[in-house]
């Protein structure tokens, strides 16, 4: 009998407090390679904090986080975190592109400067990624000259240029006008179909239902319920989840 393949991301009883406020109160979560996991939940329930813990932007108080071969809670210095940041990329709600650099420079910078990759190789990768999100002709533009939807697609390309194993998306369509939401969701859908492991925090319930292999519902710093989307959205068990879905659907 074949060994079962362990999940690529595994959180075990993760706790995190900011000062005296405990924000994560024992979060456990598993994501299989190639799967898409969505995290939903009310504002302030700790969704963003979970993502930030996974790529080590936030250090945890107890519990453990493993991403592929990285034991995240043992990475104490910025230097030790670099290999993790190579394998886990993150896209933010506010895009956070570097405004003083062109689109192409935004994409090339980190692979060349941090990962010390060959500039020519990175450039051809960047160009093909930009073409994939229909921005091949905007490489020389500055972020300020692009629409929100275009900026967010560049941010996704910048994250992909790190050639990560896992992509984290934190409400990446929340700041966008409705017509731009679609173009960004389209890019994420393509990624998911290509087999990229994705963890998304999102308020787009229909998109979550369509794309996710599993959906986690957080409230007050704990995972209240998790299940495949059909079951979670159409047969919610916990009353808190039911109340939440009544409000957002």
């Amino acid at each position, binding site marked *: 009998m074949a060994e079962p393949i362990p999940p690529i991301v595994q959180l075990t009883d993760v706790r995190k407090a900011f000062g005296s406020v405990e924000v994560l109160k024992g979060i456990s979560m598993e994501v299989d390679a190639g799967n898409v996991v969505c995290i939903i939940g009310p504002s302030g329930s700790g969704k963003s904090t979970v993502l930030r813990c996974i790529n080590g932007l936030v250090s945890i108080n107890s519990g453990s986080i493993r991403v592929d071969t990285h034991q995240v809670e043992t990475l104490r210095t*910025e230097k030790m975190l670099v290999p993790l*940041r190579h394998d886990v990329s993150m896209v933010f709600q*506010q895009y956070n592109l*570097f405004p*003083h650099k062109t689109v192409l420079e935004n994409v090339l910078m*980190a692979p060349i400067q*941090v990962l010390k990759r060959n500039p020519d190789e990175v450039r051809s990768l960047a160009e093909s990624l930009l073409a994939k999100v229909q921005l091949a002709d905007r490489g020389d533009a500055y972020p300020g000259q692009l629409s929100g939807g275009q900026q967010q697609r560049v941010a996704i390309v910048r994250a992909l240029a*790190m050639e990560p194993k896992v992509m984290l998306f934190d409400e990446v369509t929340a700041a966008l006008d409705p017509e731009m939401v679609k173009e960004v969701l389209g890019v994420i859908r393509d990624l998911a179909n290509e087999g990229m492991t994705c963890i998304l925090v999102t308020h787009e319930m229909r998109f979550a239902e369509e794309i996710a292999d599993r959906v986690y519902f957080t409230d007050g710093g704990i995972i209240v319920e998790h299940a495949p989307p059909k079951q979670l959205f159409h047969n919610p068990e916990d009353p808190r989840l039911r109340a939440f879905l009544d409000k957002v659907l």
Partner: protein
Amino acid sequence: MSRELTHALIGFFGVIAVLGGVFLAAYGGDSLDAVIVLTNRASLLLIGSNSFDSVGGGFLANIGISLASMVVATVLGVSLGGATTAPNPMVRNTAILVVNLMRNSPWLVVLYAMLYLIPFRLSIFGTEYWVSPAAKAVVGLSVPVTAYMSEVFRAGIQSVPDGQWESARALGYRRGAILRRIILPQALPQMIPNIMTTYAMLFIGTSLVVVTGTKDVLSVAKTVIASDGDDYATAVYLFVLLLFFIYCYPIATASRAIEQKIRKAGLHG
């Protein structure tokens, strides 16, 4: 732009006219004599020597001392300003303490202190160095200006949104590289007016270095008055005032113009 330039020019020549008026009021019929004294002493006051082929100090010394102090203060100020935003509380609090100490030291007191703290002769690895008064002046002026510069840098660093730090860290950049490659390039344009204002203030402060025994414009002025007579003291000091004004006014005006330009650019996206 042209209206601001007109205002700036009116201000520039207006102040010069006022100084001229004070000069005429003070000397009346003897104005020509005073002008002759100033003409004869101009090179001494400007470059500290009687002929323009050698340099011994004067107003040029003030410029040199101000530039040297500015370089020292900028280099130290960047490090100190960076340290005041460090995540490590030990480093951060120490840096804040040092900044406050330096910023609240009266300039003249620091200059006097340097006079006695720094020996005339300094022995480094067996080589004897003579510490010139100008060097002491540079060290003394650098103390408060380093504190100002570190505040300028701190404010500049903090003007860049946190999201820039976060996305840079997520891409694997470390703190020093983030500051250098991502934060400072964005903060620098906003800091330029403050840097220029600090420099103008420092330049005016160079008038204090006379206490260190440097042959700056003020000490030359005192020598001139001692030899040509107290009658011409007003003329000489008005001339020194004019020099400071001509040097500082364009810097102050330009920094204000740049600041306005940045504010407008910020408003229009």
